[in-house]
């Protein structure tokens, strides 16, 4: 790992599950500046994907030399809205970072982003990836992040198995899930920010353990780790998708987006882990109790 640096690293999405892991780890190595809707200290900068504020001067004044962009507008549920918010906001952020003299941008993409992906989430992440090609930027495509106290999707599944013994699953639950331990994510982020991955020139790094878990096995594994037994009820994905779409059309706030169903069923059937391996990253495996 490269030595510590006194320059600061800005982080977007720091209040989310992945962003908080990133922030916590980076703070061990360098000053961290949060770009957030609600700044809570002088070291934070007010920012959001939708805002038009030029933050370049603020970044420069705090000596920000690197940026980790993990924020995403998760309320949007179609391509147009995601393009308007996340893609446009990301582009503006990168421009501001360029004006501020930020030397390296690390973009937290997703394993759902790949050429030919169908989901709006994957497509817009892919579009932002393409804004960063070349230079010393880094694109990470993390898998499903897990840890001892997981949040995000993994944490959501855990909460579900804790509260219910009967769970609906999409289709037969055969879709593969590639998992990424929080520790591997944290270590990789620090290496990326410190320049260890500059040679990738923003070629995406798929970051996950290459061993795929079927969704149904993963849910059962999480349940077993919690000492629970769950019964899984397969729901045909077309039916689930149509149902959620109807709910969304009526403006209902649902725990699962229709776009996530698309992302779930139209996954990358051939994820490329070669860049990750070439960088010497050996992800920790998921081992349910």
């Amino acid at each position, binding site marked *: 790992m490269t030595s510590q640096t006194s320059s600061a690293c800005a982080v977007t999405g720091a209040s989310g599950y992945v962003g908080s892991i990133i922030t916590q780890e980076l703070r061990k190595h360098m000053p961290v500046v949060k770009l957030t809707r609600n700044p809570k200290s002088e070291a934070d900068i007010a920012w959001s994907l939708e805002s038009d504020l030029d933050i370049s001067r603020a970044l420069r004044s705090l000596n920000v030399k690197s940026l980790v962009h993990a924020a995403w507008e998760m309320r949007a549920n179609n391509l147009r809205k995601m393009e308007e918010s996340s893609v446009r906001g990301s582009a503006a952020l990168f421009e501001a970072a360029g004006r501020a003299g930020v030397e390296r941008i690390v973009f937290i993409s997703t394993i759902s982003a790949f050429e030919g992906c169908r989901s709006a989430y994957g497509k817009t992440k892919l579009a932002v990836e393409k804004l960063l090609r070349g230079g010393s930027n880094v694109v990470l495509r993390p898998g499903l992040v897990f840890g001892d106290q997981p949040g995000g999707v993994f944490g959501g599944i855990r909460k579900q198995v804790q509260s219910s013994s009967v769970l609906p699953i999409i289709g037969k639950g*055969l*879709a*593969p899930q590639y998992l990424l331990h929080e520790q591997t994510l944290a270590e990789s982020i620090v290496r990326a920010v410190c320049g260890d991955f500059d040679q990738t020139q923003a070629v995406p790094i798929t970051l996950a353990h290459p061993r*795929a878990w*079927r969704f149904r096995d993963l849910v059962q594994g999480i349940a077993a780790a919690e000492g629970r037994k769950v019964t899984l009820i397969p729901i045909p994905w077309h039916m689930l998708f149509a149902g959620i779409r109807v709910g969304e059309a009526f403006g209902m706030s649902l725990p699962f987006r229709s776009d996530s169903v698309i992302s779930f*069923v139209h996954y990358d*059937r*051939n994820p490329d*882990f070669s860049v990750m391996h070439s960088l010497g990253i050996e992800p920790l495996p998921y081992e349910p109790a």
Partner: protein
Amino acid sequence: MYYVIGSGPAGVSCAQALIAAGKTVTILDSGLQLEIARRDAIRTLAASSKSDWTPAATAFLRDGVTSGASGIPLKLAYGSDFSYRQVTGATSIVWDGAETKPSYACGGLSTVWGSAVMPHRQRDIEDWPISIEDLEPGYRAVLEWMPISVRNDGLSQFFPLYTDECVSLPMSRQAAGTLADFERHRGKLNRQGIYFGSSRLAVDADGRQAQSPCVQCGLCMYGCPHSLIYSSDQTLAVLLSTGRVDYKPGVTVQFVQETDTGAVIHAVDHQGRPMVFNAGRVFLGAGVLNTTAILLRSLGMYDRPLQIRDSQYFLLPLLRLRGTPNVVREPLHTLAQFFVEVFDDSISPYAIHLQGYTYNDLFRGPVLAALGPFRSIFPLEALLGRLMLIQGYLHSGHSSSITAILERNQNGDTLTLQSAPDPETEWRVRKLARKLTKLSMHTGVIPLIRMLQMGKPGRGFHSGGSFPMSARPGIGETDILGRPQGLRRVHAIDSTVLPSIPATTITYTVMANAYRIGSAAAMETDRSGE
């Protein structure tokens, strides 16, 4: 010295190319053979007249063969499972939702295949770094040693015959009637993207290379008593007679190490003893699972998932409106009788391949099971005279696939094969079935959609593409001569290197491509003076 690994269709085709280029070849093969008692029984049958074949004399062919609504669970050869039997040194495989199997038999899976052979169409291989023109010399060469039963019909405009000699098996009455119905509405069907013709089979229809022509005994699905269904072990025997080929059975290759001047092949014999061979070049034709495992081991690519592409297999029973009497007593062959190719972009931009099977005695079991207590009163013969079966395939681009990963553990290596479902595959097949239903007044057949059976990935044995050929190969890919990135003298020659798997059968193209690679590699060696 040129070493070819495996005696399946790819191996013998590559060996043929090398021999044609004046090289000498050693074939290393696990080489399992059909049991001697069964071979003797087949010889006895072949030496006698069909009229003398008693049920007791042919009973051994049916050993272990069962059929159900989802087809034959595992097709056997002459009542033996030797085609799928394991050997010492075989890679341990864990199946998770995938069904394809490796073969360690002399002749590989050609000892047990359905013998359907069609070339590919350029439009179906646009993602390949080579074209149909590159494959054509191989397509022609293969037909010099592999017999083919073929007619020059409506399929030839899309799928050339690559031979001037058209010899064909007689068609069953059900098939002939069906194709006659199709023919009456050819214009309408063609406008709907439906083209049809006789099946093309790797069968020595007139018995030119055997003791007898086809006697229409109806035993094809169990194993031809006259060995008229092509198996690559027949070509191996011819190759050995040239004196230019050395065959070493009982050798299971584990991995290959390339050196500055050649390659070292590491193998084990059937007692598990290590063996080493020094080769100038190595051609891996061990079948997609074994070749993939050998390459992963050779490249140190443990724990790295690869995608094995698969051409989706499905079974769709048909009911013909017009019945054919006495099919049970009809002399016929029971391989695929006719082919239907569907070109309909609203279902798939690729050709969909359908093989039509008419009556064979394996239909009887599932029908009786379905009739249950009504079997004694149901007019079974009338139903069997109308029942047909479509065995269909989709292009791999619209099929589920298999994720393969080689892991090292205390007991050796394990290759895990995990199915990776495509959510739209079944939808495409059902759309096709509905299209056929709408056309039933023109085709004279009604698809029994409720009895549609989708095979798990690998079920049809049309799988490959784990190290796809690429014009600019990266990690996990091969160049157009099947060499993985970083290797110069190790070529994969079987379906492992196909970038996609078109629906129109796999073996013929694998053979043509193996021939192409063998020819090109020999020329490259001559040019470099190695």
